[in-house]
């Protein structure tokens, strides 16, 4: 695990990755356990529908349309609308912000740079380790869904589920890359977690507020949440244009971080 920066970074994050996997996995299996009972309970459904009509605010957390009766709608409302992105984002932001800024604050970045390694290579290895870990979380989520589906006999398209998880992974990698980029501009961890989470929250609000107020609708397109879930991937699959938005944004952030990181002073 000490062959290169990529593997060393994974080694450092191993425990964190294990605990996040356990947490996310339990969350998913809990939801899947809950669904069949929920689907049978007409009273609960009725009350929820009423609540939905009376308190529009709820839409911010469970999505634009109320669809609790289909398993896809249920999984969307319970996992992909709020809890899933929240769990994935916290992991991605802490990973991304630690990548360069963490090494710099702990003063170990100098030791890496004293070796014959280019700065851009350190950055890309850190980025790869982060993306890889997020895909592992995505994979663990997929396995947990499959387990839930098998045990509790829920009928969901596995392909669509995979597409929704892929969208979630890309979305998280984007925010992780944002945190990594801010860290490569200025090596202060606190600053870049703060900045990146603020962007994530604004992004979330831009998208969710549009469920409540029509005049907000045009602004959805400025939100990465829209590109993540706007197409409703668990029902409609991935929208290639939305995937492209993520890939291009990640590419731009990486290029920016390399350009600045190559030129800037490493803090003592």
């Amino acid at each position, binding site marked *: 695990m*000490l*062959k*290169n*920066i990529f593997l*060393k970074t994974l080694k*450092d994050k191993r425990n964190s990755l294990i605990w996040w996997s356990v947490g996310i996995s339990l969350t998913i299996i809990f939801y899947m356990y809950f669904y069949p009972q929920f689907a049978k309970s007409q009273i609960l459904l009725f009350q929820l529908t009423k609540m939905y009509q009376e308190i529009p605010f709820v839409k911010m957390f469970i999505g634009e349309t109320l669809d609790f009766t289909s398993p896809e709608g249920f999984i969307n409302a319970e996992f992909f609308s709020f809890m899933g992105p929240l769990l994935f984002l916290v992991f991605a932001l802490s990973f991304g912000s630690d990548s360069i800024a963490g090494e710099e604050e*702990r*003063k*170990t970045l*100098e*030791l*890496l*740079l*004293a*070796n*014959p*390694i*280019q700065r851009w290579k350190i950055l890309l290895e850190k980025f790869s380790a982060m993306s890889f870990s997020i895909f592992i979380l995505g994979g663990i989520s997929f396995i947990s869904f499959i387990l839930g589906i098998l045990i509790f006999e829920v009928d969901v398209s596995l392909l669509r589920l995979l597409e929704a998880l892929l969208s979630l992974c890309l979305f998280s990698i984007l925010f992780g890359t944002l945190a990594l980029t801010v860290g490569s501009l200025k090596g202060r961890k606190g600053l870049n977690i703060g900045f990146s989470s603020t962007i994530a929250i604004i992004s979330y609000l831009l998208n969710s507020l549009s469920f409540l107020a029509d005049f907000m609708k045009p602004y959805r397109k400025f939100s990465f949440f829209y590109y993540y879930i706007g197409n409703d991937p668990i029902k409609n699959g991935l929208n290639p244009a939305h995937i492209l938005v993520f890939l291009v944004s990640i590419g731009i952030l990486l290029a920016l971080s390399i350009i600045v990181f190559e*030129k*800037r*002073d*490493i*803090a*003592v």
Partner: protein
Amino acid sequence: METVILIENLTKFYGKYQGVIDLNFEVKEGEIFGYLGPNGAGKTTTIRSILGFIKPKKGKIFIFGKDIEKEGYKIKKKTGYIPGDLALYENLTGMEFLKYMANLRGNVNWNYVKELSERFNINLNQPIRSLSHGNKQKIGIIQAFMHKPDLLILDEPTLGLDPLMQYEFYHLISEVKREGKTVFLSSHILPEVERICDRVGIIREGKLVTVESIDTLKSHAFRELEVHFAKPVPKEAFSELPGIKDLKVEDSIIRFKVVGSLDAVIKTAAHYEIVNIISHEPSLEEIFMSFYSGEGK
């Protein structure tokens, strides 16, 4: 002889740290070059510029004839470095840390690592977080020397080492000197630099005061001596001796500064019964003052 380090008009300020102003000097192949200055004089700024961690505001740095701006990472194949403020990966053991560094760098002979760890008496199987400052410093030394680099850049390398280990370190420096390697070493301790270096650059408040051979430095340097005699001695016996300054006689005790050789003083003093001789090493500040005022030249 090839020029290994060439610094031209280097100027750099950053943050709250002491910058450096218009530095010019070179270090030749096979030389042990001491970079002497008090804490906060700009030694670390110079060293971090040489390694490309910070980018010069003005000026150029060439290592082995290559511009560090353009070929910085290639140059590092041939350099070893000990940071002034050494920080290691606390969660690794010494062995794991060195393996990681060796993997990133390549070309490390593991037998040499073992030899160095035995010489410096360090247990590499302990987690780094449990090690004392001195023991961490030893690991820092091993990682800088383990690939037998042609150029060693050492920022206060003996910091935290006990005297025995300092001695071992000086021994290691003389070994690499015999192999023809070049060493650039910063220090704020004059006797250390006098002991191991061939030439010295003295830096103060970001400016290079002088670059001298150790012999010249020694001839400039003065010592403060206090000689206690059994009986009072005549002042005239000492006042005319070569190199004597600030002579004070109080009964049987004389106090003075002497520049250069002590020979004449000792021979004169030997005519009387001596009880004690106390010698004070001049502080760096006093040496700077002697350079500034031209004292001792």
